[in-house]
């Protein structure tokens, strides 16, 4: 067990999970004395019929004064302001957020405004601006990936002023996260694989990077084991409810792990690739994960070696000599990506150059890599990386990930 000299751990979210977890929503809200929740979602989730499943599961015990589905993929402050107005106008007293990261972030932003009785979200940016509990917020994630249902941050874009507002507070944590397999039952195989590998990257980075602690490690290992056991079976059989629930729980566990132990260079580069080349986040994570581990191998070899057990299982662990376990763990992730590539009819790419857009053209060009590296330098996640990172280092990793070749470990500058 790795015991740092000091650590903090917090997850105040009530995790409710099971085949019919949605039906617990009325009692959870009743325990807080609220009966008029506003439902926030996006067009994709509503179009897939998931909002209807939520409202049916809730039944008649609650009044739902508003169902708003006009939330863009990138949370926007104008949308937050409008929705806060709807909340007040309709006399709502809670929020149920059904969706992925941007729906959750939007819901958190709305909750700030309605709880603080404010109009200007900017006043609450940063850490420590919120000093008291907010109105009840229930998160219903519809992907098994981001873990936003258990994070204490929200990022909301102010496009008018070309800036992103970051909010961070324990009070932003939802009161409850409802993990119901019906919410991910219709995810296509390649999205299932990408979102699960997002969760995998959260868990692996949380386990190997600077801010790890015993509790985040335990959450990370649970997540990794669940993904290892259930991802390929669910891709083979998308109606596997037990597997869907397991993957959704894994995403939440990984979210708890990284919310407490943070993420590092895989996310810094991944955010960069995502924002510049418009690549889905999970796809970036799956490709970049082995590279992040290779880059940090000389610093955290023992941690990566420990991960071989939850990743590959006890038999592989026992058969692998101790000195080879770290590189075996990295190779296992690469091999897993290749299996996912096969299982999704090649829709799960294994390198950046193989990411193809809907128009059939490559999304990430070699000429994008310098800008990707420069942008990654401005991502706070780099500071949780065990080894230092400069522009040249990030470019080297991006180039290897683009080509799909392992990093040349001799070229890594070691601190």
């Amino acid at each position: 067990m790795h015991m740092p000299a000091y650590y903090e751990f917090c997850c105040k979210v009530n995790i409710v999970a099971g085949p019919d977890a949605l039906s617990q929503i009325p009692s959870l809200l009743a325990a807080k004395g609220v009966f008029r929740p506003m439902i926030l979602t996006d067009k994709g989730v509503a179009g897939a019929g998931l909002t209807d499943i939520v409202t049916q599961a809730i039944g008649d015990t609650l009044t739902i004064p508003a169902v708003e589905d006009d939330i863009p993929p990138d949370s926007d402050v104008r949308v937050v302001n409008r929705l806060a107005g709807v909340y007040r106008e309709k006399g709502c007293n809670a929020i149920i957020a059904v969706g992925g990261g941007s729906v959750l972030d939007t819901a958190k932003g709305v909750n700030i405004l309605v709880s603080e009785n404010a109009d200007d979200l900017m006043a609450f940016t940063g850490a420590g601006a919120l000093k008291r509990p907010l109105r009840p917020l229930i998160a219903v994630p519809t992907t098994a990936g981001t873990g936003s249902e258990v994070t204490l941050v929200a990022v909301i874009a102010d496009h008018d002023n070309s800036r992103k507002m970051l909010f961070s507070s324990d009070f932003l944590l939802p009161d409850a996260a409802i993990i119901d397999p019906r919410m991910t039952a219709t995810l296509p195989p390649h999205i299932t694989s990408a979102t699960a590998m997002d969760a995998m990257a959260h868990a692996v980075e949380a386990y190997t990077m600077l801010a790890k602690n015993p509790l985040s490690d335990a959450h990370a290992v649970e997540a990794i084991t669940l993904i290892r056991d259930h991802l390929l079976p669910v891709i083979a059989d998308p109606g596997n409810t037990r597997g869907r629930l397991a993957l959704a729980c894994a995403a939440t566990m990984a979210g708890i792990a990284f919310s407490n132990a943070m993420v590092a260079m895989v996310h810094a580069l991944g955010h960069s690739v995502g924002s510049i080349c418009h690549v889905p986040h999970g796809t970036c994570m799956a490709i970049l994960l082995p590279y992040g581990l290779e880059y940090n191998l000389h610093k955290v070899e023992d941690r990566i070696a420990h991960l071989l057990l939850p990743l590959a299982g006890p038999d592989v662990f026992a058969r692998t000599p101790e000195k080879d376990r770290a590189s075996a763990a990295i190779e296992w992730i690469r091999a897993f990506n290749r299996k996912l590539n096969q299982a999704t009819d090649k829709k799960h790419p294994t390198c950046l150059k193989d990411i193809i857009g809907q128009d059939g053209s490559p999304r990430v060009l070699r000429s994008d890599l310098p800008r990707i590296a420069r942008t990654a330098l401005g991502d706070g996640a780099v500071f949780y990386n065990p080894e230092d990172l400069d522009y040249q280092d990030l470019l080297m990793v991006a180039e290897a990930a683009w080509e799909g070749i392992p990093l040349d470990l001799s070229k890594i500058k070691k601190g």
Partner: protein
Amino acid sequence: MDSFTEVKPGRRWFQKIYLVIMLWFVGRAIQAAARVDKAVAKQFSAMPDGYTFSLGAYPRGPHMVVGKDDTGRVRYLGRNPDKHPVHLQMMLKSMGGLFTLFTFRESTPVANARSRLVVTGDVPQACAAVRILDIVQVYLLPKPIAKLAIKRYPRWSVKRHTLDRARVLFRTLFGR
């Protein structure tokens, strides 16, 4: 209730004095390095004119404030963050935490990883500020101590390690 007492705990004078001196050195060294070192100048060039950042301890310091004036010149702006609009605030959660940092028992990345540091402001600028602090620590500190403070000791040219270091130290003490 007879045995009930109310106390207002005092101040940590030794730590405060030590930190005031160290933060003065660091602030002045940032100003100096911005004039001497290209890498520091480059980090500052990405910040808009008038941008300021502070480093200090919750709740009331001590602090160091550094920023660019309206002409783009980097200046050490003193100890009082209330005198300037601070765009980026880097704060250790206690004076004890800042003292641990400045006695090199925890490096900046480790203090950050242990949740002792709170950053409020633009994240890319925060990354730039931390890089500036890293470079300045290499200038100010002997190598064995600098290695405790940062993740990777840089491979600099002889000129940078000697001549530029001398210029930074001189400007720290006497420069404007």
